[in-house]
């Protein structure tokens, strides 16, 4: 335990008490046993508001060990408010080592993105989920959606996709794009861009989803089939970008639009900050970027 954790002696390791962690671990085990199934759990009040990742934080707290190395990202970035707060929370309450390097981390808690680097078997990806029920806006009754999951009645999900094509000529959903897990449960992948959907398929890492306000945990075990729903004549297509990242020149990463002035100036840069930084450190330079001298562990 580090010096900071010593100062938080009134708290148990990783904030939650052991009985609570046990309860959450049970839910996680059940979730892994039934891929894509939403397991109810007794979500706790956390010292942060709902919507800030209370579900993800509880899952992370339950699986965190003293030897784990934690990375927290928000929209792909390690330096945004949500990511910084949660990282500091676990630095203080668990005293674990944290990192911004995707490859070094054993647990990655994320909001809205999957890192660009391919995740490995020893890693766990924890998603923060606002609305776990993929059918929620189609069918408001919880009793009915549970029955629909139980009987695998997923025609309604396709009605939604049908409506998109009828209205827009293509499937307009670009984030939280519904997937079928292990040929059984339709699952909401949390609001990640559909660009990231293919990364969930046969991923080496265990993927855990925690929804704090809705009190649900679900999971995709490693090497599981995850298929994005579509029509035969309107197949699923991940978002494609026409221009490369302005800073590192990457063509294969998800880009954020950054407004640079009030005269319409803008640039597109990698949303995964670690991916962008490591590429620049390797010497890749985009149209608006400047070469940088390699920096290691700048954040620490």
């Amino acid at each position, binding site marked *: 335990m580090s010096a900071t954790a010593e100062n938080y002696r009134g708290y148990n390791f990783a904030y939650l008490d052991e009985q609570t962690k046990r309860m959450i671990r049970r839910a996680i085990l059940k979730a892994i046993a039934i891929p894509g199934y939403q397991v109810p759990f007794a979500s706790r009040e956390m010292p942060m508001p709902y919507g800030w990742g209370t579900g993800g934080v509880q899952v992370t707290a339950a699986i965190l060990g003293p030897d784990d190395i934690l990375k927290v990202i928000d929209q792909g970035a390690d330096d945004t408010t949500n990511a910084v707060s949660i990282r500091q929370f676990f630095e203080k309450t668990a005293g674990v080592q944290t990192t911004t390097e995707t490859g070094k981390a054993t647990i990655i808690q994320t909001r809205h993105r999957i890192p660009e680097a391919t995740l490995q078997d020893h890693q766990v990806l924890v998603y923060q989920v606002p609305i776990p029920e993929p059918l929620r806006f189609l069918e408001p009754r919880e009793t009915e959606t549970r029955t629909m999951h139980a009987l695998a009645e997923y025609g*309604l999900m396709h*009605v939604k996709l049908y409506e998109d094509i*009828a209205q827009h000529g293509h499937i307009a959903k670009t984030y939280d794009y519904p997937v079928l897990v292990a040929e059984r449960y339709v699952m909401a992948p949390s609001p990640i861009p559909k660009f990231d959907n293919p990364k969930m398929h046969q991923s080496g890492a265990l993927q855990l989803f925690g929804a704090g306000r809705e009190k649900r945990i679900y999971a995709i075990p490693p090497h599981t089939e995850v298929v994005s729903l579509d029509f035969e004549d*309107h197949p699923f297509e991940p978002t494609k970008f026409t221009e490369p990242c302005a800073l590192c020149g990457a063509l294969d990463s998800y880009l954020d639009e950054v407004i640079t002035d009030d005269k319409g100036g803008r640039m597109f840069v990698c949303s995964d900050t670690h991916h962008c930084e490591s590429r620049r450190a390797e010497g890749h330079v985009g149209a608006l970027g400047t070469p940088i001298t390699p920096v290691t562990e700048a954040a620490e």
Partner: protein
Amino acid sequence: MNDPLLVVEGLAKSYGGRMGCADVSFTLEPGEVLAIVGESGSGKTTLLNLISGQLPPDQGRVAYRMRDGALRNILDLTEAERRFLARTDWGFVHQDARNGLRMGVSAGGNIGERLMGIGDRHYGKIRDVALNWLDRVEIDPARIDDKPGQFSGGMRQRLQIARNLVTNPRLVFMDEPTGGLDVSVQARLLDLIRGLVAELGLAVVLVTHDLAVARLLSHRILVMKGGYVIEAGLTDRVLDDPQEAYTQLLVSSVLAA
């Protein structure tokens, strides 16, 4: 007459102390239209909900001949089987189209829902079927992407019928399908229903308080009063030569049925 589609025996349901319906028995042949008539509160809707599996009866049995020819008690089916039956082999036309349609979904989506529910995954084909059905129920196919909220009452009712018939069901339950429509729209709708029933060989259980609707559409009639079936027979016989005092009253209270 050896292979009835639906066999109802000794059906009874009470709501606490109040009786919904009691001792109802009848059979329905394939392609037959049966009207259940009676005043409000006579147990018509209770009976319809019982035989369509939406309400568990206190006593009795409802057996349905599945597509494989076996007669099965619908109460013995698993929920999955019953729901599958209800969205493939059966149809249910509600009095208020709002209950039978998804109001937030376009006409095409409403018609396509059952197809997608049984695993159709080809957008173009689903759309073709929807266009074809809109045409068959006399809705301008150009309105395929409009929501039911933009439709008139009569159009909504026709859309509801199309949505139910798209999977070629063999049995359709109708609860006052012409209720709340004005007379000329009613006439068109009845004409359409009669045409489709004859063309597709549908068996229909039709609940109505309107004897004119019963006469136009049905082959046989059950007259209900206070939860009991008090008279049953061929439509023309019951309406032209009613035996029970209550039926006589009912028939005589209609203006030129």
